[in-house]
């Protein structure tokens, strides 16, 4: 997976973190590593592969012939697969933002996690544009019609800010101004 792994633990910053880490280390990590080195690596069988499933490209709903039920089914399955993938992508971006916030701290995250925040905001907007507010249940035909109406509406109203970046930037500015307005000593901010 392309997700970042955690860095190694750095002892010496906090006494209680060190005590907790040494406890968990002695109770769980050391026995498991000992067992892995002495038994598992010695007696494990040969390595064998597994593959990532590939789906053949099929016709989308707009390319299907009239009354071709088989084509409709394949297009619908492809649509559902793509929707699941897009949902996972949005989840991964949300996970990245929350990891960034935990890493930097709640206040520094306003400055340093701007990229992750913008990516998540963009992905949320795109997901909603593609799959949102169609009613339950909906089919690939409903999604296709939504896309068509959306494109017509965009052509008729070209100057409208659909994703709401102005509102987002305004909210960020207000948050930062509020935090700056709180009187605090410099070494905490």
């Amino acid at each position, binding site marked *: 997976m392309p997700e970042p792994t955690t860095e190694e633990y750095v002892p010496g910053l906090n006494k209680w973190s060190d005590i907790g880490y040494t406890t968990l280390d002695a109770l769980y990590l050391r026995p498991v590593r000992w067992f892995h080195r002495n038994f598992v690596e010695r*007696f494990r*069988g040969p390595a064998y*592969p*597994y*593959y*990532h499933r590939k789906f053949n490209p099929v016709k989308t709903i707009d390319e299907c012939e009239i009354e071709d*039920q*088989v084509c409709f089914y394949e297009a619908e399955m492809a649509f559902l697969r793509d929707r699941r993938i897009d949902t996972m992508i949005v989840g991964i971006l949300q996970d990245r933002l929350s990891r960034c916030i935990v890493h930097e701290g709640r206040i520094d995250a306003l400055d340093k996690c701007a990229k992750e925040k913008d990516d998540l905001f963009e992905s949320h907007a795109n997901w909603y544009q593609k799959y949102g507010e169609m009613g339950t249940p909906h089919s690939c035909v409903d999604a296709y019609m939504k896309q068509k109406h959306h494109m017509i509406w965009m052509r008729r109203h070209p100057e409208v800010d659909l994703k709401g970046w102005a509102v987002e930037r305004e909210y960020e500015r207000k948050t930062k101004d509020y935090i700056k307005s709180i009187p605090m000593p410099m070494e905490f901010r």
Partner: protein
Amino acid sequence: MVLFSKFRPLLQTVLKPSEQLQTIVKRWSSGRNMKVMITEFHERKFFDMFHYYFLIGLVPTFCVVFYANVFVGQATLTEIPEGYEPRHWEYYKHPLRRFMARYVVQPFDERYEISLHTIYARVMRDKMKALERKVRRLEHARGDAKGWFYRPVVDHLTELEQKQAAERSEGYSA
């Protein structure tokens, strides 16, 4: 499980039957008393059920899972080689999951293909029925053919008579 045998002495100390009850049951002479004890039935039943259901199930399951995780190990992700079609269980990582995919569960693609086939067969059947309905409708409306109104019934007796008449007209051989 190891300390189950220590429960009963603790129970006896906590819920000791009273002295009066013990003296009432003193029937035989020379200080022979029947000791009134708390029933062991529930304990024995619980231990029996525990041993039967969990240990006979848990121990083999644990051994199988231990073997699969320690000695067999999980698969490594590799690119599909050129010109090779992986079998349907080779798309899974854990050895037990591969086992289930290979021997127990219906393959992932098979369900898809079966759905496609059923849709196709349904469509063909509907088309054939629609065609028959259309033909019947047109013939009833136009009335210019005798296709659907005369049912071809095979009359075996008549055919037999005709054959025998032909043989009679040819003449019998001596």
